[in-house]
């Protein structure tokens, strides 16, 4: 039997397009200091038994084995450490790996350290590095660019289900405007000293009028590129109860995969893997997953729900932080997670269900569109955000009570790589 595992503390840096003021390891120290000293815990740095280090690309800083530099900089030698990498899902995979380390008894107290510093190359080169995480024999040489890949998928989702650009814009507005109450967020110039100057609130009209990057995706439909770090501390049940009065338990975790080249994925009629609340006849004619849905996301949710005994996610979850790399992929992910039927994701945002004051708020932090996407840090940031939500302390950390979901008891974090090649879903409960 795996041991029970709890999240007990978290820390974030201010996120920014370019944190020129600090090195990558100095940014990590900023987040680690917050995790150790600003959470209400009885835990000394020496009580950490080992680290799980989460970063995506060696290219951004032209430095291999950065994990070793981090381990040394934070003074954890000679304790165990491992680097996890899985594209955009790096952070989610790292949290899951830390869970496995603690659940198995290998570590009693584990620190997950997520980071990326993407600003030391220009934006087009950064986009190229990200695109190297697509098939470089076949997909990259024709003009490979992730926004192009996602645009193709979004266009097919529109064709298949009637999803609209307005619905996508509503996701951008929700996440960007949530971020205006989160002091760490890159788009929040009023609270974050390192924020972009043209941040602030936006409207659906602003999104629709922003320039196309790859039809139907416009500049404001697309996530940020960030410098920054996130640190999470996990502990076994016995330790967690001594460390904090408000542990947040990890009660389920799942991971799914799919073909690197989205075109290689099946198009099986009626091939949707079912969640407990779904009916086979809903999808009898649907070709699945094709390029309109993320089978890896569905599979990760299926496993996590089974482990956490969730039979109706919309009712049983109180808050979600998901990987909104694009507004379209947030809509697609609603469906993969079973929050609504396949094809109805656009309506879910339109009806306000996922708004901060809706039945199931999604991305109260602002997500990747409003807050940050420092790739290896992102999935760890989600876990930190969920910890604070379920402890009821989001207001204290964010500098505004407006992001706190009232009485949240159970939440889901979702981390996603490639065009849906690796996806993790993890359930956290207070």
């Amino acid at each position, binding site marked *: 039997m795996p041991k029970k595992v709890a999240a007990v503390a978290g820390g974030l840096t201010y996120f920014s397009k370019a944190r*020129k*003021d600090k090195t990558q390891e100095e940014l990590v120290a900023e987040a680690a200091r917050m995790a150790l000293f600003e959470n209400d815990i009885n835990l000394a740095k020496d009580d950490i038994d080992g680290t799980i280090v989460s970063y995506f690309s060696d290219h951004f800083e*032209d430095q291999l084995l950065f994990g070793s530099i981090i381990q040394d900089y934070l003074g954890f030698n000679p304790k165990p450490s491992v680097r996890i990498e899985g594209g955009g899902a790096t952070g989610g995979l790292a949290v899951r790996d830390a869970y496995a380390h603690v659940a198995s008894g290998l570590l009693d107290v584990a620190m997950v350290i997520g980071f990326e510093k993407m600003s030391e190359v*220009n934006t*087009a*080169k950064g*986009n*190229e590095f*990200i*695109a190297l995480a697509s*098939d470089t*024999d*076949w*997909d990259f*040489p*024709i*003009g*490979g*660019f992730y*926004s*192009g890949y996602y*645009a*193709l*998928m979004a*266009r*097919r989702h529109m*064709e298949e289900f009637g999803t609209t650009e307005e619905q996508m814009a509503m996701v951008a507005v929700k996440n960007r405007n949530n971020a205006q109450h989160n002091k760490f967020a890159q788009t929040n110039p009023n609270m974050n000293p390192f924020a972009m100057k043209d941040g602030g609130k936006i409207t659906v009209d602003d999104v629709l009028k922003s*320039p*196309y*990057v*790859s*039809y*139907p995706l416009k500049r404001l439909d697309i996530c940020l590129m960030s410098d920054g770090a996130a640190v999470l501390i996990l502990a076994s049940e016995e330790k967690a109860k001594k460390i904090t009065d408000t542990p947040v338990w990890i009660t389920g975790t799942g991971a799914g995969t799919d073909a690197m*080249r*989205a*075109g*290689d994925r099946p*198009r099986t009629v009626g091939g949707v893997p079912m969640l407990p609340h779904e009916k086979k006849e809903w999808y009898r004619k649907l070709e699945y997953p094709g*390029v309109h849905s993320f089978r890896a996301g569905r599979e990760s949710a299926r496993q996590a729900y089974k482990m956490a005994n969730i039979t109706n996610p919309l009712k049983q979850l109180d808050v979600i932080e998901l990987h909104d790399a694009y507004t379209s992929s947030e809509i697609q992910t609603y469906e993969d997670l079973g929050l609504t039927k396949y094809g109805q994701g656009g309506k879910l945002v339109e009806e306000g269900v996922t708004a901060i004051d809706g039945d199931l708020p999604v991305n109260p932090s602002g997500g990747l569109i409003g807050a940050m996407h420092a790739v290896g840090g992102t999935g760890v940031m989600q876990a930190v955000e969920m910890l604070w939500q379920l402890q009821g302390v989001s207001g204290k950390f964010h500098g505004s009570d407006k992001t706190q979901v009232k009485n949240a008891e159970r939440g889901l974090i979702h981390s996603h790589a490639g065009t849906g090649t690796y996806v993790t879903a993890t359930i956290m409960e207070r």
Partner: protein
Amino acid sequence: MTEVYSIDPLIIKTPYEITYKHSYGKTSKFFTSLSSGKLMTTRCEHCKVTFLPPRADCPNCLRETKWVEISGKGTIHTVTTLYFSGERFLKDLPFQLVYVDLEGVNTLFLTRLKTKDMKKVKVGMKIRMRISKELEWRSSDVWAEPDE
């Protein structure tokens, strides 16, 4: 001489260049067949599945696949027009990418669509694959053009 970008904090510029000698292995035949004007790909006779891009080994049964010629005719499954890209392709902007559903192929193939009238392009439109006269030995040596 190291180029200095800023003094406080101190930021220096470090260039980086590299050339890989990259093997296409058993899928080399796709590229070498293009010089005789043929579009070749692989098929698993056991699973009755044809893959494009080709795979030397079938992911379903792990048997070795066989080479077959395909017509290169098909339809657009989905399309986008790019106005921004990675650094290497900025010079080509704007351009169109499509997933095409090709005759006799079970997978969708990602390629460029080349057309004089990008506005006329829609999902379901008939296309045919074209082969470059000046081969660069990259997947960009083939592309789709409208065929209606």
